[in-house]
């Protein structure tokens, strides 16, 4: 039996070891990426689309915003600021609901935004938290795609109703009204029409929770069309908790219906409002019932009420007044006469999706728009934006080679922008520059000139902006012959060349090339699309309400890429699934999509990434979600597209849009999917999800900045997210993973001597993006977390002198330790107050240093170089003078500290001995050495030797420059004063110590003491 125990023990140890296996295949991203952490730079000033707003039923300070692509945000301060609470999950939100009986703890989040524009994201189910958002559990509806409403019975928390709008791009049976009677464990579908009709809105009678109203909507989108409305759209009522449903259409328009909104007046539940999309324009608009839906009367069909029902159909009634009604819309509309007449809400970003009233005061409202959350304090007349919601929705990003580099990109309904990747005090709203109107898409910087290209939807305008002279013109290609119709994607592709700086490409159905920055154009391809006429009837798009915004334009080129290795190799991908390549600058083209195995026909080619290692090699990413196919597709060719192989593994979740190849290690690839970022270090065999401060947000575009190795992501819901310096990933392999500690190479680090006056003036409630560090970073991999025993890290010079002590990272995975290349601050004499100059830590000179890690009995060393900015005006001699001056003052400061320590010790001794004469002398001397009265603020006393010395030390040490003549003169004055003080003290000390014995620490011991 004992033997058996032993065997079992061995067995289980074996299993444990297996679980810890260190290989690229087995290791989890969370155990690998360690301190490699994403940082967010926003922008937040234009924010992004909001889908649903929610208030707490009893605490007016708490407000939630469910965003279209940036997760769930919570405010604890009445809407002044918000924090994200749903980062680990799908960021596209349909509905947020608090359990009215437990609103602090129990919250439901239905994913998948419900205002079904072309660029809408998808959800992946219903989530629940019972601890206020710290932990979430998915409780079903995996295939729902979009959840429109969640309602908890106010009298019974176990009873939950869910309105599922469902799939947009195809048939689905996971639609309609569902109910749970056990708090969300099991669900019953109560109202279902057909695979094309979902629940667009759901409302409950707060006075009788058995009464429900559900609006059902027949709708469908394809890549080239949208259809709203049909025979199946209807408004239903149930009076038995959802068991049976009846249409309530008495007074409704005849014929087909589209999207309907429904609202119950909380103060009088007999009063209902619905907004109806109908066949005839004059019958569209707002209807009211005063008898709980038995009959309806049409009240208003103004533009603000009928505009784009698929995008705006929310009706909200003031909880205190049944006659105050607000309707979402292009501007948002408010009625104070029961819905008869409306006026626009105050100036704010257009496209209003949801409105909530404060529970305390109906003058206060929170409004969700395409450009963030707005607050009003005066009943909707004046609107102010929430400034810390960085939920901007990028379609693309690009970078330049400035230092720090800038990031460029276009935003859904928010124009085009560029801003710095780092900025003094952080990347603030004021750092961003607007560079285009309308919906923004692609923005590119001219490779050598101060020129930026940007565009708006469908290449209606393509701007060329001279940012130095503030000169702007439009340069989009125009029809070159009568009858030539150019088909532009809504998100029209543009590209520049690394070979010819003035070259500029654009894609309609043809590839257009300009060699003069867009002034003249040449078409260098035939129609590269399928040119399928069935997908070109956009003027018929919209269903009951025509909606030809250009967003459905199809059979167009979507991505263009010229090889960096050969300017004659150009790749083109189309939205209808072609992958075309030319090897002769456009004379001949080959459509290679037929060579791609396992790819459904006509799947949207979203991105092509030509390799930097070989001109026949490229990656192509396909997105099938507009054909109701959410599989990720990415392929690699090494022979100009003759053959393609998939580089996707089962690890990848969410359809993919973009891939980025590393510039050094061809096996290191980055993949952006609808649910986040994935990284492979073995050419696509295994992908790891990156989750360090990286939400599960849709990544639309990825750039790798060559000089810094920063990975820059354009996300569709969380702005620009950057992972600084991904270079450690280049050397991750199975061998490294098994080492106890592996140092990654530290590139030469420039000592930063720049400084600026940055205070975050007025940014208290603003989002401020974090900066890239200027410190030197020591990076290493640990194969196990260090938990027991000592682990320390010091920086030494090459002679082994300790310069600094640092706190090493202990995580399993990649650890990053920052050092700001300074020594310790000097030991400063003790006075009554602080000597602020003494808080300056002196910078070390450029040179070679080593980081030494001691872990248990083992020691690990890594050398690295600090270098000066090559543009610094200082000569080597200047540097030497600066260093010796700083260190002379540093040493003097410490000597003075020791002198004052000795003085204090003798003073104390003398005082306790009643030697008043010595004590008086010492006190008199001390008063000239350090401040002995006052405080650290406006009660400060006259500065003494300590302060003068430390201030000069700090002045020299914090300057970029060599010491000035004035500083050197001042130094001699102080040095002389110090010498005199030393002599004065020595006299008193020698005399006293002849008579008395005083215990004194040595200078070195003193430096080590507190």
């Amino acid at each position, binding site marked *: 039996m004992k033997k058996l125990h032993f065997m079992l023990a061995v*067995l*289980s140890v074996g299993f444990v070891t297996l679980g810890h296996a260190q290989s690229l295949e087995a290791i989890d991203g969370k*155990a690998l990426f360690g301190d490699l952490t994403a940082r967010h730079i926003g922008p937040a000033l234009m924010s992004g689309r909001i889908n649903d707003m929610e208030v707490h039923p009893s605490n007016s300070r708490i407000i939630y915003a469910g965003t279209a692509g940036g997760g769930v945000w919570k405010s*604890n301060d009445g809407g002044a600021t918000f924090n994200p609470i749903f980062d680990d999950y799908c960021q596209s939100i349909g509905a947020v609901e608090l359990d009215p009986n437990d609103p602090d703890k129990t919250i439901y989040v239905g994913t998948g935004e419900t205002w079904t524009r072309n660029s809408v994201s998808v959800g992946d189910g219903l989530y629940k938290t019972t601890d206020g958002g710290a932990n979430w559990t998915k409780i079903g509806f995996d295939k729902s795609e979009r959840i429109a409403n969640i309602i908890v019975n106010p009298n019974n928390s176990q009873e939950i109703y869910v309105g599922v709008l469902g799939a947009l791009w195809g048939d689905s049976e996971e639609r309609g009204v569902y109910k749970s009677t056990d708090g969300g464990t099991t669900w019953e579908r109560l109202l279902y029409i057909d695979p094309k009709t979902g629940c667009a809105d759901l409302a409950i009678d707060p006075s009788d929770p058995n009464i429900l109203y559900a609006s059902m909507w027949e709708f469908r989108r394809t890549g080239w069309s949208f259809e709203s409305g049909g025979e199946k759209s209807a408004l239903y009522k149930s009076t038995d908790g959802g068991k049976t449903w009846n249409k309530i259409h008495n007074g409704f328009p005849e014929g087909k219906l589209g999207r309907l909104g429904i609202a119950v007046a909380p103060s009088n539940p007999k009063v209902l409002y619905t907004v109806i999309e109908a066949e005839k324009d004059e019958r569209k608009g707002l209807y009211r019932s005063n008898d709980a839906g038995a009959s309806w009367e049409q009240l208003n069909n103004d533009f603000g009420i009928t505009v784009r029902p698929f995008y705006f159909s929310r009706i909200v009634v003031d909880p205190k007044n049944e006659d105050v009604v607000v309707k979402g819309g292009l501007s948002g509309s408010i009625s104070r006469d029961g819905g008869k007449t409306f006026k626009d809400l105050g100036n704010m970003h257009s496209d209003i999706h949801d409105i909530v009233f404060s529970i305390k005061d109906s003058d206060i409202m929170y409004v969700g728009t395409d450009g963030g959350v707005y607050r009003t304090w005066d009943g909707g007349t004046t609107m102010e934006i929430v400034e810390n919601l960085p939920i901007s929705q990028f379609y693309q990003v690009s970078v330049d080679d400035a230092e720090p580099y800038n990031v460029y990109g276009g935003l859904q309904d928010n124009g085009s922008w560029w801003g710095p990747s780092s900025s003094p005090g952080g990347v603030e709203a004021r750092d961003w520059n607007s560079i285009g109107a309308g919906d923004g898409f692609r923005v590119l910087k001219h490779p050598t000139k101060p020129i930026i290209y940007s565009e708006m939807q469908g290449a209606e305008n393509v701007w060329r902006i001279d940012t130095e002279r503030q000169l702007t013109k439009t340069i989009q290609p125009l029809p070159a012959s009568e009858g030539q119709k150019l088909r532009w994607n809504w998100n029209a592709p543009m590209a520049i060349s690394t070979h010819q700086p003035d070259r500029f490409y654009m894609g309609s159905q043809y590839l257009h090339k300009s060699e003069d920055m867009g002034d003249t154009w040449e078409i260098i391809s035939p129609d590269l699309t399928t040119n399928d006429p069935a997908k070109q009837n956009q003027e018929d798009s919209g269903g009951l309400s025509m909606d030809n915004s250009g967003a459905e334009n199809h059979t167009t080129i979507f991505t263009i890429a010229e090889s960096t290795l050969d300017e004659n190799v150009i790749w083109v991908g189309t939205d209808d699934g072609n992958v075309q390549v030319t090897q002769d600058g456009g004379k001949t083209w080959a459509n290679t999509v037929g060579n791609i195995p396992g790819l459904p026909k006509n799947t949207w080619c979203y991105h092509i990434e030509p390799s930097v290692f070989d001109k026949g090699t490229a990656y192509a990413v396909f997105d099938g979600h507009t054909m109701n196919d959410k599989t990720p597709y990415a392929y690699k060719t090494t022979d100009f597209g003759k053959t393609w192989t998939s580089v996707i593994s089962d690890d990848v979740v969410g359809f993919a849009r973009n891939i980025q190849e590393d510039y050094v290690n061809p096996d290191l690839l980055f993949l952006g999917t609808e649910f986040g970022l994935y990284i492979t270090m073995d050419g696509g065999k295994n992908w790891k999800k990156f989750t360090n401060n990286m939400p599960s947000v849709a990544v639309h575009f990825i750039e790798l900045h060559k000089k810094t190795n920063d990975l820059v992501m354009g996300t569709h819901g969380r702005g620009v997210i950057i992972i600084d310096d991904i270079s450690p990933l280049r050397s991750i392999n199975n061998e490294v993973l098994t080492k106890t500690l592996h140092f990654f190479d530290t590139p030469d680090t420039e000592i930063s001597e720049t400084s600026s006056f940055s205070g975050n003036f007025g940014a208290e409630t603003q989002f401020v993006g974090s900066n890239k560090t200027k410190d030197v970073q020591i990076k290493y991999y640990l194969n196990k977390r*260090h*938990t027991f025993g000592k682990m320390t890290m010091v920086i030494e010079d090459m002679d082994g002198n300790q310069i600094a002590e640092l*706190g090493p990272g*202990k995580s399993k995975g990649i650890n990053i330790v920052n050092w700001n290349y*300074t020594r310790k601050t000097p030991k400063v004499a003790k006075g009554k107050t602080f000597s602020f100059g003494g808080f300056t830590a002196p910078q070390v000179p450029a040179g070679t240093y080593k980081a030494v890690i001691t872990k248990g009995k083992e020691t690990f060393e890594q050398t690295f170089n600090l270098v000066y900015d090559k543009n610094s005006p200082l000569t080597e001699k200047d540097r030497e003078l600066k260093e010796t001056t700083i260190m002379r003052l540093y040493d003097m400061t410490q000597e003075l500290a020791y002198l004052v320590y000795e003085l204090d010790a003798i003073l104390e001794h003398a005082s306790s001995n009643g030697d008043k004469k010595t004590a008086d002398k010492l006190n008199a001397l001390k008063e000239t050495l350090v401040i002995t009265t006052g405080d*650290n603020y406006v009660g400060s006393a006259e500065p003494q030797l300590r302060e003068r010395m430390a201030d000069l030390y700090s002045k020299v040490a914090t300057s970029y420059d060599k010491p000035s003549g004035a500083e050197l003169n001042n130094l001699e004055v102080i040095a002389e004063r110090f010498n005199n003080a030393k002599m004065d003290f020595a006299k008193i000390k020698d005399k006293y110590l002849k008579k008395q014995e005083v215990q004194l620490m040595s200078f070195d011991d003193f430096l080590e003491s507190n």
Partner: protein
Amino acid sequence: MKTLKITIALIAFALALPIQAQTADEILENYFENTGGLDAWKNLKGMKMTAKVNQGGMEIPLEIYNLKDGRQMTKITFQGKEIKQGVYDGETLWSHNFMTMKAEKSDAEQTANFKLNTNDFPDAFIGYKEKGYTVELLGKETIDGTETFKIKLVKEPLTIDGNPQDDISYYFFDVDNFVPIAVQSEIKSGPAKGQISEVTMSDYQEVDGIYFPFSMTQGVKDGQAQPITIVSIELNPTIDDAEFAFPKEETEKE
């Protein structure tokens, strides 16, 4: 044949063990057992930690006192001047103002919230049931690259800006050795309110039979963290009561 069956059954049982659900109490039991035994923990009367933090080259020495009766104090030494922060004498919570270096009382709400934690020495989990706390195992989570048990601790409700709020923190116990390696909680007030604070613990070492972390980091989850190095820990230290007392207004000496 019978033996074989038993063997197979036993192996199956053994294989099931690692995935068998641990209860929160078992994890806590293991934690105290592995770090010195619950009795040793309970016998502690006080602790003095000598520590240092490094702020941009400035090494700041700290002395942190925690006593069983709830009294606490952190002494910071700047340029030889001692500054006290977070001093609690059993009644009053006070700190030195950095400008005037005079003692000032914390506001009533903060003091009341602080008092709620004075029964948590040496560890909030000891006697948690008697204190009316609840503990819940939420499952496993990877922290610092390591698999941990995530345990939720709910203590007495706090009052924040006049409103009652639950005092919730999440402890992450290393599955291999059952010591906590991280604690997370929501920041309730101040400029970082709404963000998640994270403290990590490592370098566990023994002091008179009990294991304590000698290295900690403090920061916001996914943000920069400030390392704190503990130089030494003294158990049951002697300390003058007067050190904790709120000082009377001193008159400037001439």
